[in-house]
């Protein structure tokens, strides 16, 4: 990159040399001068100059200018309200206008105390009003979704929220209806704003118009603490503030990390915190006394019982990880099992090959890529939501974004990712469309390769493709793990013994099974193992089917209640801080107790540096041997009917399922089908359809026609695909 041309700009008599094209708001800041703004937010794209709060005097221009829409040019002389009475008068007038219809209900507005409108009015406003007429009124608050409420009286029409909806998340659901002074912020036909990133508008709103409904009347700014931590709900690891009041989490806000999340959060990360207070939260150790009956026991007794059960297993122990543990928790458990109990068997999610790390790049590099390729059947937005925003940002910046899956820009059969990867890596015999793409990728300097599906060969297939394409500086490989800290957990497991250890035994009795966390309990493989185990020790936050087979259940903690480190999908280690104290000792303390009884010292605090944090990266090279991909699905499907592809919705999982206000985001009982298949069967969106699997199981679902979906494929969320085989028959009811 060439060095930018520097120009000289004068702001309030202070001269500065600054790259040409820098926004005037930033230029002034660099001079130590603040220009107040409402609508200006560079992350929302080009400035719009809607609020006029930034009016300034520019030498040579007769009228006041909106500074946010201008950039640094040589010899530009800017006078802000600090030195120009004309600009100050302009700003006062603008604030008077903005406040014309504003209700000034700060004493009972949740934004009060942390409100840009309030702050700027105090600092720059006229301090009085000439408005003698009744102010405009609206019904309020209007729930634009169960998690967001809208107060139209407070809205100053800065259009930040609608710009986010149109230009960042691109859901285009929140819009400004009507024109001029009659404009209102609205959704279509007042339907709920149902999108993965809707909550961001509550943080963008510079007044109290869009607020999280879950925070309404919950706390005041002077009685809260904001704890800096990292979200533990998906492998992106967005940086957040956990707002707490009196020891309870009241809200989650973004804590902008420009390389990871750019200040955006998904609705799962923002609103799931309430699961800490779920009714079925386990609060004390429970011991099974009769079949399916549990009695509370004291912690001492629980530790005793755990040490006994694990000791009697005589090395026949299996650990099932959730992938949501901190590195330190996973490390403690791994050492307990591998060094203390002499076991090497575990279920470890997302055990990626270190070859993947050779192609590390920050998530922000996706935005700067020239070509992005997304491979795999899992929707990126459901597996690692913010990655979807980076891909959209890349497309807006002019990148070619190529998605290869059943609903992608190149439509392929479900389960074809490994085949496509091989075709792109060895294009000699590949179909022409992949040969052309492979050529394009080899000729491109900055490529972002996103793998969103089964971790074929533990990421080696993806790494082999990255190596074959010669991904170099500026390019990155992003294998999206299934679990939030799967990468850290698997590293911790490997570091505690000799390599990866073993898979759990296929059959026969198991001495003891340790189920670490609710997600592990939800895994059907773990459920099958638990039936063969003499002793099942489970740590879980909630009671449910997944805890019923346990002999001993310990209360589990949430990521908001822990201290430790986690590794995100980039391979970046980040610190999770305890926002609120769990109402009981956390897992680490308990396993330290058990370790002591078994003669293996484990620290009860996350103070030992985790061996999981690798210091050196492997080179960008081809990984070792690859396994043969499964035979490709035949174009028309091998069985009768349509090929089924299922996916796990972002709004699924033990925590989010327990948050009532997010129930509207849960996946609908819906079958997506291609236009051609819908046309053949006379099905329209909204029709009831009967879906019958090869095994004869039938279920009624609602049809939704997806024009992007490849013909011959239907898609259903995991929750609604129970009992379906790989091929289904679909007919109109």
């Amino acid at each position, binding site marked *: 990159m060439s060095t930018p041309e520097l120009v000289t700009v004068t702001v309030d008599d202070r001269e500065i040399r600054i790259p040409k094209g820098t926004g005037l708001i930033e230029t002034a800041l660099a001079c130590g001068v603040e220009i107040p703004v409402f609508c200006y937010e560079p992350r929302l794209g080009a400035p719009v100059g809607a609020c006029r709060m930034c009016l300034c005097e520019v030498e040579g221009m007769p009228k006041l200018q909106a500074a946010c829409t201008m950039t640094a040019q040589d010899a530009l002389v800017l006078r802000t309200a600090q030195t120009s009475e004309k600009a100050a008068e302009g700003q006062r007038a603008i604030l008077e206008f903005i406040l014309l219809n504003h209700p000034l209900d700060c004493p009972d507005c949740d934004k009060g105390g942390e409100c840009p409108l309030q702050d700027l009015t105090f600092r720059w406003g006229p301090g009085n009003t000439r408005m003698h007429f009744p102010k405009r009124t609206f019904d309020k608050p209007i729930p634009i979704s169960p998690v967001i409420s809208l107060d139209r009286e407070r809205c100053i029409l800065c259009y930040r929220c609608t710009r986010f909806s149109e230009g960042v998340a691109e*859901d285009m*659901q929140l819009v400004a209806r009507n024109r001029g002074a009659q404009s209102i912020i609205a959704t279509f036909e007042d339907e709920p704003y149902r999108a993965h990133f809707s909550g961001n508008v509550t943080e963008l709103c510079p007044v109290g118009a869009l607020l999280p409904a879950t925070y309404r009347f919950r706390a005041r700014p002077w009685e809260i603490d904001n704890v800096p931590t990292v979200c533990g709900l998906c492998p992106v690891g967005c940086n957040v503030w956990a707002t707490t009041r009196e020891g309870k989490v009241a809200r989650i806000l973004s804590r902008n990390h420009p390389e990871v999340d750019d200040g955006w959060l998904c609705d799962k990360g923002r609103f799931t915190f309430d699961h800490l207070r779920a009714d079925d939260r386990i609060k004390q150790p429970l011991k099974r006394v009769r079949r399916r009956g549990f009695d509370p026991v004291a912690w001492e007794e629980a530790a005793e019982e755990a040490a006994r059960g694990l000791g009697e297993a005589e090395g026949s122990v299996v650990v099932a990880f959730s992938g949501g543990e901190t590195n330190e928790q996973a490390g403690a458990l791994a050492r307990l099992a591998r060094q203390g109990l002499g076991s090497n068997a575990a279920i470890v999610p997302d055990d990626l090959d270190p070859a993947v790390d050779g192609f590390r790049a920050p998530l922000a590099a996706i935005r700067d890529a020239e070509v992005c390729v997304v491979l795999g059947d899992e929707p990126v937005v459901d597996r690692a939501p913010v990655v979807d925003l980076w891909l959209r940002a890349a497309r807006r910046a002019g990148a070619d974004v190529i998605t290869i899956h059943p609903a992608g820009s190149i439509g392929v059969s479900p389960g074809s990712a490994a085949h496509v990867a091989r075709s792109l890596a060895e294009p000699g015999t590949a179909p022409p469309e992949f040969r052309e793409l492979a050529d394009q990728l080899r000729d491109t300097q900055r490529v972002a390769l996103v793998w969103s599906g089964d971790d074929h060969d533990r990421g080696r297939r993806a790494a082999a493709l990255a190596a074959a394409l010669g991904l170099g500086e500026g390019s990155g490989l992003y294998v999206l793990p299934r679990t939030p800290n799967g990468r850290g957990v698997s590293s911790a497991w490997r570091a505690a013994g000799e390599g990866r250890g073993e898979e759990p035994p296929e059959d026969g009795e198991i001495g003891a099974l340790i189920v670490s966390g609710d997600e592990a309990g939800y895994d059907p493989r773990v459920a099958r193992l638990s039936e063969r185990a003499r002793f099942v020790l489970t740590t879980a936050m909630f009671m449910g089917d997944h805890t019923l087979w346990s002999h001993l259940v310990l209360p589990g903690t949430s990521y908001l209640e822990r201290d430790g480190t986690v590794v995100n999908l980039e391979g970046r280690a980040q610190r999770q801080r305890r926002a609120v104290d769990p109402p009981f000792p956390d897992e680490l303390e308990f396993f330290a107790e058990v370790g002591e009884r078994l003669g293996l010292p484990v620290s009860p605090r996350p103070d030992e540096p985790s061996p999981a944090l690798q210091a050196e990266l492997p080179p960008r090279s081809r990984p070792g041997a690859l396994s043969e991909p499964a035979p490709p699905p035949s174009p028309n499907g091998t069985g009768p009917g349509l090929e089924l592809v299922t996916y796990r919705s972002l709004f699924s999982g033990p925590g989010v399922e327990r948050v009532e206000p997010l129930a509207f985001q849960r996946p609908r009982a819906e079958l997506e089908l291609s*236009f051609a298949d819908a046309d053949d069967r006379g099905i329209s969106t909204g029709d009831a359809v009967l879906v019958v699997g090869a095994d004869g199981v039938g279920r009624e679902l609602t049809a939704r026609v997806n024009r992007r979906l490849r013909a011959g494929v239907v898609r259903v969320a995991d929750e609604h695909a129970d009992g379906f085989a790989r091929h289904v028959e679909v007919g109109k009811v």
Partner: protein
Amino acid sequence: MPESDLYREIQRVADRYPVRRSAIMPALHLAQGKHGWLSPDALREVADALDLSPAYCQAVASFYDMYHLEPVGRHTVEVCTNISCALVGAQQVLEAFEEELGVHAGETTEDGEITLRTIECLGGCGWGTVVAVDHRYREPVKPEDVPGILEELRGG
């Protein structure tokens, strides 16, 4: 789900634009022509055809005066009340229409025949008051012309 005629017509229009969503205004016009007004279902059809959201289509439609977001009568009478027409008595013309039709501006007669609306400048400022009857201009219109216009409309 057979593709509707409207869907195909919108595709033909969209093909003429480098960016397909730029076809939103002609597409809304086509939908209005087919449905008479831009009902929620009509907006959904346009959104589906251009791969936009219904909310976005509604936002565009609500910005402009000549898209109808409420059902309208078989005929429309649109009285310009912008500055030039207002200076030469548009208000009196409007009131004459209201009296003759028995409805307020923005309403439709009970028999569903005629919708009366006010409208922004129609570009006939030299010949105020301008009234668009079924999109054909009548100018200049005086209050006493109103019964004749309506008779003609009902008769034809």
